[in-house]
């Protein structure tokens, strides 16, 4: 009489065998005490495993993980804010420069316009005229504009200082 292999017994427990083999196994088990005992032993081991409880993770894990995520999100937000600040900063510098250039061009226009016309080519003068048509109002308000951009610059710098302070204060987890 050939006994059942342990592999077949485990496949039988896991129901990983075909209907025909299952039939043969059942027939053999009804006749063989040794194989039946083996089956019972394996079933006991299985039952045992299913009763194992999970080990308890430390409760602090939630706090630690969430704090790290929160820190990362804040850092991302700060980077985003810094990007916005940089754009404002660069834009305000550009506006200030343009305003200053136009205010000085205005002076040139009054004092040395004829000289320029004689010395330089007509193209530059024409361009100057077109620009002055569009930006006439800006010429007039260049001082106000400069003042506003300086104000924006100050606000941006204060904002940056505040961001840096926040960054420094946050503890490393």
């Amino acid at each position, binding site marked *: 009489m050939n006994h059942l292999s*342990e*592999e077949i017994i*485990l496949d039988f427990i896991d129901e990983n065998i075909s209907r025909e083999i299952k039939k043969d196994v059942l027939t053999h088990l009804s006749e063989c005490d040794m194989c039946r005992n083996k089956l019972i*032993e*394996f079933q*006991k*081991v*299985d039952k*045992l*495993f*299913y*009763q*194992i*409880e*999970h*080990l*308890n*993770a*430390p409760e602090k*894990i*939630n706090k*630690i*993980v*969430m704090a*790290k*995520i*929160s820190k990362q*999100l804040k850092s991302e937000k700060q980077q985003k804010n810094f990007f916005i600040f940089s754009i404002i900063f660069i834009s305000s510098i550009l506006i200030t420069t343009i305003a200053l250039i136009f205010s000085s061009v205005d002076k040139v226009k009054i004092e040395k316009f004829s000289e320029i016309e004689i010395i330089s080519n007509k193209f530059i003068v024409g361009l100057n005229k077109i620009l002055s048509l569009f930006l006439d109002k800006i010429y007039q308000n260049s001082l106000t504009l400069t003042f506003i951009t300086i104000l924006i610059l100050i606000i941006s710098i204060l904002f940056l200082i505040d961001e840096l302070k926040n960054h420094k204060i946050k503890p490393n987890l």
Partner: protein
Amino acid sequence: MVMINLTDNEIIDSINKGNYNDFNLLINRYKHKAFSLLMRMLKNQMDAEEVLQDAFLKTYYGLKNFRGESQFSTWFYKIVYNSAISKLNYRKNKFHNSFVSIEENLKIPFESNIEIEQNNLNNIVNKLIEQLPPQYATVINLHYMDGFSCDEISLIMNLSVSNVKIILYRARKILKEIIMKNNLQEELR
């Protein structure tokens, strides 16, 4: 309280919509399971805690890329498992190699005589599993405690299904032998 009944995918949707605090629900749902697996693999509480944190962070940042093609649990366990393997590689442990050489003959490295200090079923079984080689303990953990099928375990551990079945078969055989040798069957009844 209502949130607790949400499925994993519903929680993930909520997190991806910006409610990052809902990730706490996933942590609560999986922390004990993942910690058990890590303890079985790493056999060291400090390392298990460190890798658990790391795995949860990787999971959070990977959620945007989670397409829901597989179950979240399988995807998450794969992260946990790979993080543990990285830790083991870092320790220059040969654990990972033993996965590759699963077809080789197994020498049972554990003691056959187990001292049972506490007559507690859970303690006895945990002690028995501790004696198993890490890859065997991992498969036992995933199959019996977490209810994964051999197919799912093969995805998590990046092994073939037949290798998973071999490990499962050998682990059960080893544990049955230990139980019988130590006459534990009476206590475990």
